[in-house]
């Protein structure tokens, strides 16, 4: 008995890095939040930036209106970054920044802030997300076209490998692919294809001897859904494919450099607005997916809050999720054992299945010319997968407890408090930040900034020069986020990503037969086909919902005008007028509905289409929904309204009523 090898590890494993994706309003308020979180036992920082910062606009830009400080903190220059990290020793901290299009810029601000603290850049540890392809595919905070974007990524990688060696310059994100509806096979295949595109681009820009260290610095940011056994298998499959890619495609000899390193934010897609307390269980099970097996365990974890489908979480909500990580790491015996699944036939079988499926899909992307060229294809596939997922929820094939099954419920005391259980950003933040950035511009050495930006523009035009030194110089000189991005937009041009909706296959007609008939009848009465504008005002790039609505409306027989993300209120109003639409649907998930929706209504009145009915969908607390209805919004839909056909029938009824067309006898 005593000779049998111990099933335990000789020493308990160190826990993963524990973070909370956090940041809101301005630098000072976020700094307070970070310090409190660190006191609570959080071991790393995860900075959430607001959408203007993520897309390269200053708080006083037209497109920033309504978005400043909403989904994250507003950082416009090195003064903001200094305040954000005040009192946090950057030599010891491990900081993850969810930043992509403007990653080079925020990394530069971080380096300059460390410099001010007397910390050399070589000591910095952390991650810039810096993954642009998934921005085109799902998240929407891109700023430049694909070619120049890939160059910015390659430049940050080349720079950090040499100067900031402990930094993870890119987090290849499969997270957002799953949020956009990816199946496990798609999630693996597209993430890996994306990594190949990045590595191939870097290979062009660094000394070949550095490639093994480059490969070793690439980390991933994954998602984990509630099917936690398969999700765990997915991570093992990714580890296997990554190892193989390192060996065969990039000749990486050292197995340490080929290790699949990943951080995780578990699934938000599956979190429900109905009976939101159940989300706590979902989050716990999803956390198991990324921790259970030692050989594919996450390096860093951040968990969503139970109430994300309701609005922005409060510090207490985030603390609740952090405590879950701490219980898992410090109370349970999880970290005392070697890999639990070694030798498991079920796990090996699942992994083999996923590896094979992913290889086939990767081959298809390769045939299309690689991930950059295949953006349209991948986008359309994701829209299609998401549509299929939604169809299964609607038909009941897929059970979502509390949403399409087991729906009767007692009133929840958790959402009963006055604020409805969510964080509301102080509306004065935007005005304050606008004034602050203008003050900053007035007080700095303008000549220094002008020179730095001119140099940045010159380097941007020089394809073979690294953008980072000029970017760091601009950060030092006091340039703003908007100025850095505008300089590059001038050189690189702007870009609109594909919407993916045009290619989506039609639903089997029996699924929409009834609503289609209603659309046909109404169209005949109207004299022309029911025309529906689906608009996404503001900077919010989470277009999955809007895309599904657009595709379903098309399947129901409507003519749908869908122009993608990032529209100004006047663009939406102009489209509504010129296109002659019968109804407008607006989708907003960033919490900026209070500012943007009145602005759209006003612009529509000015454009002479004030009488066209408007419906709104998004993450909208009930109190706000009431206020919107008072403003004249015909209907407000939130994540609990998951039955899209019903929504379509509502829209038909609304248009019929507004046009004085009675219900059929």
């Amino acid at each position, binding site marked *: 008995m005593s000779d049998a090898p111990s099933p335990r590890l000789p020493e308990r494993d160190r826990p993963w890095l524990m973070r909370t994706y956090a940041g809101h309003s301005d630098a000072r308020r976020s700094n307070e939040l970070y310090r409190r979180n660190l006191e609570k036992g959080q071991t790393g920082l995860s900075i959430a930036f607001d959408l203007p910062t993520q897309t390269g606009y200053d708080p006083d830009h037209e497109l920033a209106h309504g978005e400043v400080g909403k989904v994250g903190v507003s950082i416009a220059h090195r003064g903001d970054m200094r305040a954000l990290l005040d009192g946090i020793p950057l030599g010891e901290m491990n900081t993850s920044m969810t930043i992509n299009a403007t990653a080079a810029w925020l990394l530069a601000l971080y380096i300059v802030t460390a410099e001010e603290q007397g910390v050399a850049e070589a000591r910095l540890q952390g991650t810039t997300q810096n993954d642009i392809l998934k921005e085109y595919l799902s998240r929407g905070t891109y700023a430049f076209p694909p070619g120049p974007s890939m160059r910015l990524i390659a430049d940050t990688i080349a720079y950090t490998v040499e100067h900031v060696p402990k930094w993870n310059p890119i987090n290849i994100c499969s997270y957002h692919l799953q949020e956009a509806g990816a199946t496990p096979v798609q999630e693996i295949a597209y993430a890996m294809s994306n990594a190949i595109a990045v590595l191939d681009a870097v290979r062009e820009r660094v000394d070949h001897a550095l490639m093994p260290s480059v490969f070793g610095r690439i980390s991933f940011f994954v998602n984990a859904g509630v099917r936690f056994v398969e999700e765990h298998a997915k991570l093992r499959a990714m580890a296997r494919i990554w190892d193989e890619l390192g060996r065969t495609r990039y000749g990486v000899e050292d197995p340490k450099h080929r290790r699949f390193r990943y951080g995780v934010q578990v699934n938000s897609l599956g979190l429900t607005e109905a009976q939101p307390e159940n989300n706590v269980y979902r989050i716990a099970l999803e956390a198991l997916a990324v921790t259970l097996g030692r050989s594919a365990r996450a390096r860093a974890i951040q968990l969503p809050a139970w109430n994300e489908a309701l609005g922005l979480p409060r510090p207490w909500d985030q603390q609740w999720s952090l405590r879950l990580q701490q219980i898992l790491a410090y109370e349970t015996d999880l970290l005392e054992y070697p890999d639990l699944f070694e030798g498991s036939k079920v796990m090996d079988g699942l992994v083999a299945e996923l590896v094979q499926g992913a290889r086939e899909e990767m081959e298809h992307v390769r045939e299309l010319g690689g991930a950059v060229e295949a953006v349209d294809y991948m986008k359309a596939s994701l829209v299609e997968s998401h549509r299929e997922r939604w169809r299964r929820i609607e038909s009941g094939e897929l059970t979502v407890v509390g949403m399409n099954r087991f729906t009767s419920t007692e009133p929840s005391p958790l959402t009963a408090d006055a604020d409805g259980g969510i964080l509301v950003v102080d509306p004065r933040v935007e005005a304050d930040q606008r004034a602050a950035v203008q003050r900053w511009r007035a007080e700095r050495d303008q000549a220094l900034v002008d020179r730095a930006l001119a140099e940045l523009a010159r380097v941007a035009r020089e394809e073979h020069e690294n953008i980072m030194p000029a970017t760091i110089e601009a950060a030092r000189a006091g340039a703003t986020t908007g100025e850095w991005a505008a300089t590059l937009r001038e050189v690189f041009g702007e870009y609109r990503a594909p919407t993916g909706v045009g290619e989506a296959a039609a639903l089997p007609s029996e699924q929409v037969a009834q609503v289609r008939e209603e659309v046909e009848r109404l169209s005949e009465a109207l004299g022309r086909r029911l025309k529906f504008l689906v608009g996404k005002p503001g900077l919010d790039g989470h277009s999955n919902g809007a895309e599904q609505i657009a595709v379903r409306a098309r399947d129901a027989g409507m003519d749908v005008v869908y*122009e993608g993300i990032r529209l100004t209120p006047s663009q939406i109003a102009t489209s509504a007028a*010129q296109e002659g639409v019968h109804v407008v649907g607006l989708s907003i998930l960033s919490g900026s509905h209070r500012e943007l929706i009145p602005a759209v209504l006003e612009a529509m009145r000015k454009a002479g289409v004030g009488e066209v009915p408007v419906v709104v969908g998004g993450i909208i607390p009930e109190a706000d929904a009431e206020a919107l209805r008072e403003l004249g919004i015909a209907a407000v839909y939130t994540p609990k309204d998951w039955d899209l056909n019903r929504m379509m029938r509502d829209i038909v009824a609304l248009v019929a009523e507004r046009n004085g067309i009675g219900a059929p006898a």
Partner: protein
Amino acid sequence: MSGGGGLEGAELARRLRERDLTAAPAVLNLLESGTGRSREAARELLAGLAPAALGREAPGHVIGVTGPPGVGKSSLLSRLVAHWRSGERSVAVLAVDPTSRRSGGALLGDRARIEVDPTDPGVFIRSTAAGTRLGGLAPATRAAAAALASAFDVVVIETVGVGQSETEVADVADTVAVVVQPASGDVLQFLKAGIMEVPDVLVVTKSDLGRIATRAVSDLRAALRALGADAEVVAVSALPPGAGIAELGAALDRHRDSIDLPARRAAARRLHALADFATEHGERGLRALGGRRQAERWLAEQDPALDVRALTEALESRAASA
């Protein structure tokens, strides 16, 4: 009830004649509409804008812009619209979305790709789904182009060139610009396809590609010369700051100045009438006219000032008497 439609059409025609650009959405709503009342109104509208009513051909320049998907038509149009606007010319774009109708509905995403100032009242963009055939013109597009040409300085019909639609655009437009990109196989395919007679101006995009683009331009010029065709070839780049856009604008203007506009418009009206007739009466109707060719020959002999409605009615009475 039925009289109201006519008044509405006449009123819209008056507004367009007076160059009231804000009438454009209502004009399109009307032309797309299929109720009996609106058809009558649409006829009134078009009659009010016919050469007989205007005392001349509609002054706007109707330009067809066509080419394969992904060639950069929308970026090109963004630049062209800016060019025209800088010269104070008003522009209407009828974007025929390549998305074919599925399940009766359609997703229209084309206007998103044309960047314009949404607050500029001198630009109007309207998207419609392609006709039932892939890439074909939507039924209302011909009528809309004719109507808007009386109020806008430039009317662009943007279509995706996949087979038939180039020639359809040629039936409607004063000037047809075909857009190709270098090194994509477009150029070669284009040369092979034997549709050299169609374009009035050939646009090679992505001139920023340098030698590849220059090569494509000279290949096309050589091929055109060999065919004895006189289309201009212009290389452009839509990448900021843009290149060749003013030259393209000038080439389009030159073409328009070089043609016999009334003759071209009369031909367009005849084809339009025939298309309307065929939609209404089908193959059987065409047979009653002795076939499409015969009908075209007969139309060519009619008074060039006749508007589409008069021509359609003439065809109908001829078919009825046959």
